[in-house]
C-alpha cells in the first residue's frame, strides 16, 4: 500500500510550524500598524485647502505672531480660524488680483465662509482646551510642530490618547515659560542658552507672576534662578504654574466630559 503522505510532507509540516510563527508576528505588526501608522493617524498628510494658505510665508516670512489670526487661543478652549475679514485686512490692498486669493475675495463679497479643511480634528467626545495649555506653559510648537516652516499645514503629532497622556503624566519635558509660548524656535534651556526665572509679581494669574527670560551663558541675575536643562526648568515651572499631578491630569473627566 502506498504511503498517504510522501517524503516532501515532512518539510511541509515543519514549514507550517514556522509559518504559524510568522503569521503570528505578521498579525502583531499589522495590528500595530493599524493603530499607529501615519496612514491611520494622518500625520504628515497635507490636504488641499480651498486657498493654499502658507504658514511659512506668513509666520517665517512676514513675522506675524500666532494670535494675530488665532485670536482666541489664550481666552477660549477653541483657538479659532480667522474669518475672511482678517485676510482682507491686508489682501484688500495686496495681491488684489491674485488667482490664488479668489476664494477669499468671493467669500468677502458673498459672505460665505471659506471651507477650510480641519487638519487637527479630535473626536467630539474629547474636550480639548487651548487656553489652559497656553497659559500653563505649553508652546504651540510642542503640539503642532514647526508651523512656521509649513507651507501647507499637516499634523505633526498623532493626537492619540497615549500621546496626550504621555505629557499629562509627565509634563516636565514640555513646559516652557509663558513668554516663550509663541516662539516657534524655542528649544529649551541648555548650558549655552540658560533661562533665568523668578517670582516677581504678587498679583495676577499664576503664570504671569513668574518672570523667565533667556540669559547669556554665565550670567547670574540677582534673585533669579538659572536653569541649564529642561528637566530642572520643567520641575520649577510645574511648581510655580500650579500644574496638577499626574493622577489628576490623567483622570477621565479632564478631557472626556
Amino acid at each position, binding site marked *: 500500500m502506498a504511503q*498517504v503522505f510522501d517524503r516532501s510532507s515532512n518539510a511541509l*509540516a515543519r514549514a507550517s510550524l514556522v509559518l504559524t510563527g510568522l503569521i503570528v508576528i505578521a498579525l502583531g505588526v499589522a*495590528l500595530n500598524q493599524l*493603530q*499607529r501608522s501615519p496612514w491611520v493617524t494622518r500625520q504628515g498628510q497635507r490636504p488641499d485647502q480651498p486657498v493654499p494658505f502658507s504658514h511659512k510665508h506668513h509666520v517665517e516670512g512676514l513675522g506675524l505672531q500666532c494670535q494675530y489670526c488665532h485670536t482666541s487661543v489664550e481666552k477660549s478652549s477653541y483657538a479659532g480660524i480667522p474669518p475672511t475679514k482678517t485676510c482682507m485686512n491686508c489682501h484688500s490692498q495686496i495681491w488684489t488680483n491674485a488667482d490664488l486669493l479668489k476664494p477669499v475675495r468671493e467669500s468677502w463679497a458673498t459672505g460665505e465662509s471659506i471651507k477650510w479643511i480641519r487638519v487637527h480634528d479630535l473626536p467630539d467626545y474629547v474636550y480639548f482646551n487651548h487656553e489652559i495649555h497656553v497659559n500653563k506653559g505649553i508652546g504651540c510648537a510642542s503640539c503642532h510642530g514647526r508651523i512656521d516652516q509649513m507651507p501647507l499645514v499637516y499634523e505633526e503629532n498623532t493626537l492619540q*490618547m*497615549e500621546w496626550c497622556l*504621555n505629557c499629562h503624566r509627565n509634563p516636565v519635558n514640555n513646559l516652557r515659560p509663558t513668554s516663550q509660548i509663541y516662539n516657534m524656535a524655542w528649544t529649551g534651556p541648555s548650558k549655552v542658552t540658560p533661562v533665568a526665572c523668578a517670582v516677581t509679581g504678587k498679583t495676577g494669574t499664576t503664570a504671569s507672576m513668574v518672570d523667565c527670560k533667556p540669559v547669556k551663558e554665565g550670567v547670574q541675575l540677582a534673585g533669579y534662578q538659572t536653569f541649564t536643562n529642561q528637566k530642572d526648568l520643567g520641575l520649577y515651572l510645574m511648581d510655580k504654574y500650579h500644574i496638577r499631578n499626574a493622577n489628576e491630569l490623567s483622570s477621565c473627566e479632564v478631557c472626556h466630559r
Partner: protein
Amino acid sequence: MATHGPLHDPAVDPMIDPRTGEYAVVAPGHNFKSITQKIAGIVLTANTPIAWIGGLMFAATVALGVVAGLTWLFLKGVGIWGITMPVAWGFAIINFVWWIGIGHAGTLISAILLLFKQTWRNSINRFAEAMTIFAVCCAGIYPLVHIGRPWLGYWLMPYPNTMNLWPQFRSPLAWDVFAVSTYATISVVFWFIGMVPDFGTLRDRAQHPIAKYFYGILSLGWRGSTRHWIRYETASLLLAGLSTPLVLSVHTTISFDFAVAAMAGWHTTIFPPYFVAGAVYSGFAMVLTLAIPIRKFYHLEDMVTERHLDNMAKVMLATGSIVAYGYGMEVFMSWYSGSHWEFFMMWNRMFGPIGWAYWMLILTNIAIPLTSLWSRKLRTNVLYLFILSFIVNIGMWFERFVIVVTTLYRDYLPSSWGTYRATKWDYILFIGTWGMFTVLFLLFARIAPMIPMSEIKMILPQTKVHHGGADAETVVEEAI
C-alpha cells in the same frame, strides 16, 4: 445485555468480567477489531443516514435564528430585547450562564473522572467534550453581543493600544473574558489531543484518498509507538489536572458576576460552589439528552451501557442535592440575616409577580428529579431519564432566570421597580443557539469518532495482563 443491571448476581451477570471479577464498562463480546469497526464505521461509511441529513437541515434552519437575531440586533441595537432599566440583564446573561453551565459536565467527565480513574468515563468523554465546546461556542456569543457596542468588544482584551487604556481587572465581567476564552482553548486542546490516536485509526481505515489526507493531517503522524503513548498519557493527565481547577474556577468566575454585586439576592457567598454544582447538574442532564438518542440511533448500547446512564443519574442526584442545599441556604439566610431587603427579596421571589418562575424551578430542579433519582428502576429507565434530562435543563434555565430577573426587577428603591418581559428577539436568538449547537454536534458525529476507540480498547478485558497469557496471540491478531 441491556436488560442486566450491574448489581445482578455476579455469577450470571455478563457485565462482570469472569477473569478479573471487575465490572466491565463495555458489554462483553467485544474485541479490538469489533470496537474499531463499530465506531469508525459510523464515520467512514459512504451511506450518510437520511435521518442525519434531515436532522442537520432542520437544525441549520433553526440556527438561522442566530443569524437573523444577530443581524437585527446589530442593526437596531440591544433595545430590541426585553431588557429594561431595572432589569438590564435578561435572556442574554441567563442563556450565557445556562450554556456555559451545560459545558461543564463535559470537562467534569473528561478531566475530573480521569483523575479519579473512573473507566466508565471512557465511553462518554468524547461527545461530552464536544458538547462542552459547542456549548461554549453558543455561550460565547452572548457576552459579545449583549454589549451595546459589540464592535468594541476587543477593548476587553489587555493589549497595548494607542489609548494607553487597559481593562478594569477588578470587574468579574473582565474575568469572564479570561475564564471563558481559557476554558474554550483548553477544552479544544484537550479534545483534540484525545482524538489524535483515533484520527490515526481513521486514517488507516479510510478508503477514499480525501478521507485519508483529511484524517492523516488531523492525526499529526501518530504511529502509536510506546513513546507516543507515554507522552500522550502524560499530556492527558496534565491537561486533566489543569482542566479540573479550570472548570471549578470558570463557573465560579461566572457566579462572581452576581455575587460581587451588592444586590440582595446576588450578594451571597454561597454562589461559587452552588453555581458549579448547578453547572454539573445541568451539564449531566445535557449529556443524557445527547447520549440517549445517540446510543439508540447508532446502536451503541453495548458501549454506552445502562451502567453509564445509571452513573450519570447518580452524579445528577449528588449535584442536584447540592443545588437543593443552595436553595435552602438562600431561603434560610434571607431569614437569618435579619436584613429586610434580603427578606423581601425572597418573599418577592416566591410570591411576587414572577413567583411562578421560582416554583417552576423548585418543581423541575428539586421536586421531580431529586425524589425519583433515588430509585434504581427509574435511573435505568432510559425513557424516564431522557424526559428527566429535559426537565432538569428547563429547571436549570429557570434557576438562572430567577437569579437574574427576580433580583433585579424589585430592588432597594421601590421607585425603580419594574418588570421583565422577553421579546421575540430574545427567543429567536436563544432558540437559534439550540440550532447552532445541534448543527455543530451533528457535524461532529459525522466527522469525528464519537467514542474514543483507543480508550475503550484500553479497558477491554483483553488488555489485562494475567498469568498464563493464554490469549496473548489472539490479542495481537485482533489488534491487527
